[in-house]
């Protein structure tokens, strides 16, 4: 915070009082906005995980937040001095690989057996999975909040009086890259298109020669990897504990606001939720600020049930 103060001073000297206050206000707004952006990117990354699975299997992984938590703990377990003490740049890709395999295995051993059951069954199953993951993570890594010893966590960046943590910058950059990459993947590659086809009509996709089950496994792997990225970034930014996955609820809000079928929508939704939060905390009375993201979520559901960025269509008979 000291660095913050110093950084602000040059901009204020020699100006009139009114201007000075306005300048500080603007700076504060900018600061809130940027910190919201970084948080929003984490929500966006988790939301990406939801949307990936939804796009490919028409199901929602309610444990995506807990996937992120596990990813964070795995990277922490590999990197931190108290555990395996590997260099971060080896641990990070390792974590992503482990989580991708983890996602694939979850599909292989759990979700694949649900084939043909209703969406509600998947919803309930993944919620239960979240409980189990939280419990297991608590057993392995304990319930005390821990921080990842990450090179991203060091240092701040000063841009015209606004202070940005390096971790925040990394989060924003990586999130935008991830979204772009996944978007291209779904739009351009054969596998991506096959995944979309598989979600819309499993039977037809199967007849067209798409190995529906394997595609489903791959998408779970991909969403596991996404969760790992989110987890590493989140753990670089602040402390994590087994309940960190509950953040997933806000990511839901993000996914819904963006429209469940759209990857850029998920990111946009995450950013909206992330930016609203600090502003609500700053300008609204105590009890009301926590409500803001959920109130927005409900408003979107009521007025634009399929998200801000998508069109509503009905089932064909």
């Amino acid at each position, binding site marked *: 915070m000291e660095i913050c103060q110093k950084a602000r001073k040059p901009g204020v000297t020699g100006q009139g009082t009114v201007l000075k206050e306005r300048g500080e206000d603007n700076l504060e707004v900018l600061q809130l906005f940027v910190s919201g952006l970084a948080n929003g990117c984490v929500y966006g990354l988790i939301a990406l995980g939801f949307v990936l699975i*939804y796009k490919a*299997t*028409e*199901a*929602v992984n*309610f444990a995506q937040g807990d996937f992120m938590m596990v990813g964070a703990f795995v990277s922490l377990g590999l990197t931190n001095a108290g555990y395996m003490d590997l260099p971060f740049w080896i641990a990070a890709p390792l974590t992503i690989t482990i989580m991708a395999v983890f996602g694939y295995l979850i599909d292989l051993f*759990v979700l694949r*057996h*649900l*084939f*043909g*059951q*209703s*969406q*509600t*069954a998947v*919803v*309930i*199953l993944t*919620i*239960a*999975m979240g*409980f*189990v993951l*939280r*419990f*297991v993570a*608590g*057993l392995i890594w304990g*319930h005390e909040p821990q921080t990842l010893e990450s090179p991203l966590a060091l240092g701040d960046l000063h841009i015209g009086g606004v202070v940005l943590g390096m971790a925040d910058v990394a989060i924003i950059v990586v999130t935008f890259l991830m979204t772009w990459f996944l978007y291209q993947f779904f739009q351009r590659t054969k596998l991506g298109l096959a995944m979309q086809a598989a*979600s*819309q*009509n*499993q*039977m037809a996709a*199967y007849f067209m020669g798409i190995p*529906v089950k394997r595609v489903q496994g791959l998408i779970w792997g991909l969403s596991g990897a996404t969760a790992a990225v989110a987890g590493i970034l989140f753990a670089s930014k602040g402390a994590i504990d*087994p309940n960190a996955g509950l953040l997933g*609820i806000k990511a*839901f*809000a993000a996914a*819904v606001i963006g429209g*469940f*079928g759209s990857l850029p929508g998920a990111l946009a939704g995450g950013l909206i939720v992330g930016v609203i939060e600090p502003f609500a905390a700053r300008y609204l009375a105590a*009890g*009301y600020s*926590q*409500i803001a993201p*959920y*109130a927005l*979520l*409900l408003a979107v*559901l*009521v007025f634009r*049930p*399929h998200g801000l960025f998508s069109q509503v*269509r009905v*089932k*064909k*008979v």
Partner: protein
Amino acid sequence: MRIHFKTTYNDDIRLFPDRWTFMVYAALLVLAFALPYLIGEFYLGEVTNVLIWAIAGLGLMLLTGQTGQASLGHAAFLAIGCYANTILIEQGVPFIVAFPLAGIITGLVGVLIAIPVLRLHGIYLAIATIALSVLADDIIVLTEPWSGGVSGKFPEMITIFGLEIERWSMPSRFYYLVLVVTIICTLFYRNLLRSPLGRAFAAVRDSEVSATAMGVHIARTKGKAFGLSCMITGWAGALMGYYAGTFNNETFSLVISITLLMMIVIGGLGTIHGAFFGAVVVAFLPQGLSILKDGVFGSGVAIPGLETGVFGVILILFILFEPMGIYGRWLKIRIWFELFPFARKDMFRRQKSYLKTERLR
């Protein structure tokens, strides 16, 4: 195997298909009423707890099992029922009026919320109701003048025409009260199932398109299901308030919502028995686990998240291997014995189908 010949249409309409079934349930009812004379106060309290959970389960079952709408926010309606009942009684309304009214208020609030929310399908509904459950906590804090906020409320002693009922000092009276409410709710549920509305619920659950083509108004039917579900849940909430003796904004949390949903899945979706079986699991699991834990690790060892973790594992196993829940398993065992030795393994094979999406894109 029992075979009964049906001679009138009423054989399919009445509550009990045959004399034997009637006798079984009559015996069960007699046992339920004799229970306070058979077991100690501690266990009576536990049974009361089971019944309250079962009422809440019936409420959610009507919505999720019958109408196919998963709600992850039913704790919010437990809270509304509980607060409505307590506040009405504090305003001087007698219990005998306040209690039914609390359910009706919860039902009406449910309908109001349902109007926008029920246009949503499957997961969207689940997420909206999660938001509802999270919001309920904050709203209780914000409406502190009525709700007591964080410091909570203590429900007053129940008096019905001068008869005092209190959970701790007279557990058997409280048990009878809960039992009567349970029976009433179960009868309501049964009656709905065998009437046009119950069939409309099933129609909406299985195919909205053809339900519409048959003249079922989807939104109105879902609204009714939501309202009735919330009404029953509201009653359960009011009873829960008495059972706990004190409650605040954190009593009816998201975890309770999710526990409720998991309870009816473990019990068996779409069946009345399922709500009761599920309630038994939810009520006794914590006790069972703590006894087990004390046996293995010695008392005093705390394992946070153990209950929910084990609960999650049980649930996953049920969804994977017995989607019909405990009641489904029970039916299979019964049929196996009835047909012995002619039961075949593939008699109960589930039909697997590829997902047909409701989405068009």
